[in-house]
């Protein structure tokens, strides 16, 4: 009975297992090389659950905050906006990340079990990201389209790239005789909701479906469906003549559509996206909202110059009054960092979002001061 090969294998496996139980090199307790700067005294765990659109940005913010405060752990669980709002309402998280703010009815209905009784909630628009309309055509990087054209393409009413409607807006670009395959999201998503909101606002007579996070059922058979931003990007990359919509930071090498705003065609860019947020009013101007509720009603039919109207605004939602004062302190510090210039530029590097403007920042700071 030859046991030696067996013993060798088992020994190798056990050594490997032992090696794995060692500590992570990047989490070593010895941070003696951070001599300069005051050692932070904050400690604890912050838990956030919510939209995966903010996933990369939250990772960057968590990393930045944890580096400055080594004893704090920030866990952001990118389970989705719905799950995030549900968990926050049930008291299972300190803050929620959501692709849309709570409506006034939802706030009135409550409950918000994680907050102190009679506490209001803060809804802070801290993640602004352009949604790019991406396509895959050999050798073509940019195509101009107005809102009506985009709507018709995604409804399947314009089905070929060299259709005269598209060609007419693109002088000098040779569009191939290729079928257009529109790609949409198969999962419910804030990106879809924002994209459809834009189409309803800017091309309302063509796009007659309701706004929702789900792609309209009547159009389900048109084109392909893919799961998640990654799925859409893979689907568009994998086909020829495909067109889809996704968070702009993931556009990569794919071609993108320049959208007609007013008289000119505007390609996406973080500045253009941030501009539309500033040009839009707060919900509290027309509805009955608490002081810290900075939900925004985006004006997507704007004609102002240099504005890119297809944008996703994700909110960080938290309590105004916490049950636990230390937790309130932690969340306040974390969100202060997130909304700061440093925080916004940290996430811009990793997630490609548009940093919030200084006017919005001052409103956010005022709201954060309410946390207790």
């Amino acid at each position, binding site marked *: 009975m030859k046991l030696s090969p067996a013993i060798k294998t088992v020994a190798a496996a056990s050594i490997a297992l032992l090696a794995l139980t060692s500590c992570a090199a990047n989490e070593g307790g010895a941070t003696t090389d951070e001599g300069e700067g005051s050692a932070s005294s904050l400690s604890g765990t912050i838990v956030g659950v919510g939209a*995966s659109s903010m996933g990369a940005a939250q990772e960057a913010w968590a990393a930045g905050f944890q580096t400055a405060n080594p004893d704090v752990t920030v866990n952001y669980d990118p*389970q*989705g*906006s*719905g*799950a995030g*709002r*549900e968990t926050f309402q049930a008291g299972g998280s300190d803050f929620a990340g959501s692709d849309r703010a709570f409506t006034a009815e939802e706030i009135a209905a409550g409950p918000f079990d994680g907050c102190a009784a009679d506490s209001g909630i803060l809804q802070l628009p801290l993640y602004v990201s352009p949604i790019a309309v991406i396509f895959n055509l050999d050798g073509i990087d940019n195509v101009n389209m107005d809102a009506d054209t985009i709507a018709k393409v995604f409804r399947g009413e314009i089905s070929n790239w060299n259709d005269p409607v598209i060609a007419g807006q693109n002088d000098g670009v040779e569009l191939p005789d290729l*079928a257009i*395959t529109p*790609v949409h999201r*198969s*999962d*419910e*998503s*804030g990106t879809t909701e924002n994209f459809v909101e834009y189409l309803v606002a800017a091309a309302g007579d063509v796009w007659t479906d*309701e706004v*929702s*996070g*789900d792609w*309209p*059922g*009547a159009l*389900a*058979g048109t*084109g*392909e*469906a*893919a*799961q*998640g931003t990654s*799925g859409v990007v*893979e*689907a568009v990359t*994998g*086909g*020829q*003549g*495909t067109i889809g919509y996704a968070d702009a930071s993931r556009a990569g090498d794919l071609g993108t559509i320049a959208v007609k705003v007013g008289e000119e065609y505007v390609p996406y860019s973080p500045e253009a996206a941030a501009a539309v947020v500033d040009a839009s009013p707060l919900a509290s101007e027309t509805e009955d909202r608490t002081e810290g509720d900075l939900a925004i009603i985006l004006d997507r039919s704007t004609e102002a110059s240099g504005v890119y109207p297809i944008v996703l605004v994700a909110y960080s939602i938290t309590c105004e009054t916490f049950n636990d004062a230390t937790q309130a302190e932690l969340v306040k510090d974390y969100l202060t960092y997130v909304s700061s210039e440093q925080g916004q530029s940290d996430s811009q590097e990793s997630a490609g979002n548009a940093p919030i403007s200084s006017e919005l920042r001052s409103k956010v700071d005022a709201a954060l001061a309410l946390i207790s």
Partner: protein
Amino acid sequence: MTSTVPRLQAKARLGDVLFSRTSLFAGGMILVTLAAVAAFLIVQSIPAFFASGDSASILREAGNFWAYVWPLIFGTIWAAVLSLVMALPLAIGIALFISHYAPRKLAATLGYVVDLLAAVPSVVYGLWGIGVLAPAVQPIYSWFVDNLGWIPLFAGPVSATGRTILTAAIVLAVMILPIITAMCREVFLQTPVLHEEAALALGATRWEVIKMAVLPFGRSGIVSASMLGLGRALGETMAVAMVLSASGIVTFQLLTSGNPSTIAANIALSFPEAYGTNVNVLIGTGLILFIVTFLVNALARYIVNRRAEFSGAN
């Protein structure tokens, strides 16, 4: 003779009592767990059965729960049947190859290699499906639609990316293949050697030995194995969610962009954004999946039990 001989009773050994009680307890735990899961599903689904488009935004298009779940049931069964039809003959063939055709030394390694397929996580199958399989089969689909498009199964227009229900079924088939193969292989290896040698002694060819001695012996094992595989295919979530271009329509066309979705994939896609009654609707669809599996398994057990199979422990 009136005095009765005292009946001999076997001593109730402690080991026996402990062992049998533990086994009974384990069986009871299964019952309890399943009852708990069923209770959870039923309690959470009840609001869904009475929901309409107003109370649950997810039902806005369909109107009520049953109209919402019917295309999903169709898609689940269709995808699972397609994958089982592809996987079962292959699995039996591979198991036979490993147990009866391959050289002895090679057989163990080959078995190990096929078991590797079971080790691949479903996310990876999803990534492989979108990145490698779909682009590879798309030209084949094009060919089928162009040349055999008059058959309703292959009607066009063909999907541009190849992410159709057939591709998802192929991925599912590859996923359930190792499970069915592994069990079938073990079962075929357990065929009494005496039976095989008797057949050989009578001059049977290798295939006839298999047909006469191995396959009948392993029939219940094959059905068990395919039930395990089918269970996996019915409940597979991530791979189908990533690969399938799902549009919720009911169709038998295999090669187009519009495909029925499966219940599990639909839960995975809609759950993150679901809130309120929508969650109940999704759990309701989970309950339906549960019931569908129940019925399929009942059918299989019935088929197996119709002929009291001879097995080692009769």
